[in-house]
């Protein structure tokens, strides 16, 4: 590294840069902070609108109330299983799909790519997907959750673009050394694409973690429900969109779950998946790929 002497314009740039990012962070974090203090405050104080900068009557009852739900532990475990299995399958499948499509000598790659992008727009909808899963006898199994979304065309195309950016020379020398595509893919391409793979793991994992729709459609057994489906039911209960019929009853209107509990639910569901990012971030080091090439 050459010892850098910072010019005034560079210092200015850095200061402005940091200032803008700081403001952005505040804008992003305040609403989230607001939800957090609401979830920690006393229900009636929240209802009276007394909470805005600090929690009022701080307590954990809303969290305890949510965690008392007997369905939570099991559904949490389900979600973890679906996320791990799903991500493993999805990242491997996407890489398997992206690598051949990134190679110029792969005859038919344009047609195949078009075919795949075509499916992004022409989706025959809920019933058709249900029928396919049913015909494959996957209903009410984990496979109904993890398989239909195994390749996200958008992510796959991005992955292909990353692979395309690998310098052509390494492939040429590998071929000269007698390596075939299987070896190149596993021994060279994948190790060189750690940041890409890490990003894909993050994207797919978050997708599976947040997913509830396929579970709703394809699973019949409550025991198999992921946590999002259970939580959604808590957060949405009392919203006018759900089961309007019960609203005319005396108890029906009771269905309003207090705001502090709703927000507690939000934090309980998102906390574990937030822990994935730091592991991904670790691989976002400038020049890792170039370093790997030289090494």
């Amino acid at each position: 590294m050459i010892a850098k002497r910072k010019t005034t314009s560079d210092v200015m740039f850095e200061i402005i840069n940091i200032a803008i990012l700081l403001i952005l962070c505040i804008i992003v974090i305040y609403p989230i902070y607001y939800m957090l203090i609401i979830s920690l405050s006393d229900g009636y104080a929240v209802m009276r609108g007394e909470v805005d900068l600090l929690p009022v009557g701080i307590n954990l009852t809303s969290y305890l109330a949510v965690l008392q739900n007997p369905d939570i532990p099991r559904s949490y475990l389900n979600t973890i299983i679906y996320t791990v299995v799903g991500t493993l399958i999805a990242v491997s499948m996407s890489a398997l799909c992206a690598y051949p499509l990134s190679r110029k000598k792969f005859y038919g790659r344009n047609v195949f790519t078009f075919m795949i992008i075509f499916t992004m727009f022409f989706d025959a909808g809920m019933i058709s997907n249900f029928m396919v899963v049913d015909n494959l006898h996957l209903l009410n199994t984990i496979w109904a959750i993890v398989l239909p979304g195994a390749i996200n065309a958008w992510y796959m195309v991005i992955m292909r673009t990353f692979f395309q950016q690998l310098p052509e020379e390494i492939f040429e020398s590998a071929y000269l050394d007698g390596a075939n595509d299987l070896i190149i893919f596993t021994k060279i391409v994948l190790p060189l694409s750690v940041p890409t793979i890490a990003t894909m793991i993050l994207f797919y994992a978050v997708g599976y973690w947040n997913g509830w729709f396929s579970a709703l459609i394809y699973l019949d057994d409550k025991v198999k429900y992921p946590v999002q489906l259970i939580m959604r039911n808590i957060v949405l209960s009392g919203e006018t969109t759900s089961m309007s019929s019960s609203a005319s009853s005396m108890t029906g209107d009771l269905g309003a779950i207090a705001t502090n509990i709703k927000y507690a639910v939000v934090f309980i569901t998102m906390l574990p998946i937030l822990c994935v990012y730091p592991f991904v971030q670790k691989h976002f080091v400038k020049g890792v790929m170039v370093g790997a090439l030289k090494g």
Partner: protein
Amino acid sequence: MKKTWRLMSLVLASMLAASAFAGCGETEKSSTETSQESTSGTTSTASEGSDTLLAEPLTITYLYPENGYSPISQDCIALQEIQRVTNVTLEFQLVPSSDYGTKKSTYLATDKIPDVFFGSQGDIKTYARDGMFLNLSEYEQYMPDYLALITSEERADDAKNLYLDGNLYSFVRLEQYRVGTAPQPMIRMDLLEKNNIAVPTTWDELYDVFLQLKELYPDSYMLSSRSGTNYLIGQIAYSLGSGGFEGFSTSEGMYYDPTEEKYLYGPIHDNFKTVLTYLHNMYQDGLLDPDYAVMTKDICWEKLSSGKLLFYYDNDTFAARTFNPALQQVDPDAYFDMLDPMENSYGQTRALRYQRDWFADNTIINSEVERAEDIVTFFNWLYTDEGAMISNFGVEGQSYTIVDGEPQISDELMNKHASSSDKLSAIQAEIGVGQFNFTPYINETWFKQTTDPLMVEHGDRIDAATEAGTIQFMKNSMALAFTAEEDETLTDLQTNVMTVFNSEVDKFITGARSLDEFPAFVEELKAQGAQTIEDMYNEAYQRIQ
């Protein structure tokens, strides 16, 4: 380029073939699977003897929505008792209620509905004509108790709305007993008392009270809405001499006018101008919350619980259950109390209360079930005294005891849930009964034991006003009375009329459009077919009478 296309067409062709296969297989398979499902229900072993309702054991799979705050348990005592008495096992397939509609429509569209499901009148309209549901009219001899209820004097008129082309397709949820509930004018009575303001009995007096309160509490508003403009209008319009949007049917402007003895489309009649004028004046005088049109339930609740709103016209029970406790933490004297129905500028004193029964809650039976008679017999049993007792209160000696002829919650249950914020729901969830469970014939006697006496008192006053004729029940939906063709026309017209109505109505309230233009507004609505909608309603109403 050429060969690219050739390859592509080859690939596409093979795919179409593949998809055609997938499609073909489906119809065949789904039918075999449904029949398998229903047979599996009957293959139980020995019967338990003839003292049960059914001699042969029967398992009924029941697709049912489950609320986030009131989970349904398969081994609650109510279900066990039902099985003991009837030999029927209800096997619930529970779907989160937030997304129940999506799951249900997937099942309906793919013809995968289990034996029985919880559905709406819309489902009956869309699918019953295809023969997907059991036509109960062919099984009338197995359901005498249910039929007796819906043809009884107090229900007969409304129950005409339950028939589609003259046939009955569902068991609807009926009321055996409830504490009276209605959307009623609710005011901060403590402030009236404190400032020696007389309790208003007419809408004009109420307006004066609003003005006085505004002077005393300039930061507060008098009226808002928890669900937008139409909901607000629906709460007050009928009492003010017009109507429409009542209850939760916020997308329709139709209402039944007892004086004219026919259906009216509220917004196209002169009386509706009175409603708009009242709201417009309130807006001008700073009485109507400026955010009335965009308010969410949470924000509205916040304002009512913190003294920022001093009046509401909505479900009377919110006061005792929610706002009063929140207010009293800060000011022990604060409370909302109910006003009696008020006289409007046409000299009428009238208001609405929620429908007696729940016509939107239907138990619908798949037409491909094997033991249809037995299933009908079972659901009919739930409407008998014995069935209603078990499905509302559980088991005598365990969950309730009889005191003065009325079932009382057992002490054990009461103590167990003493600290719960909503005792009744918690107790009902534990034994597996009530609105959020499958109970089809509702008895909420227990409310008297578990809630604020203020609520019971309000209920008595609402019942008294109903007797006196100043409060009428809201009419149940006429959805089933229309033919398939009429339905299509109605959907089109209603969407168009509502689009115009919704884009304009707030302009009148806020003053962006002068009320002198009301006749022009009526013409705009009529141009979209509002008059036709009204005529179609009355035609259908005549038809079913």
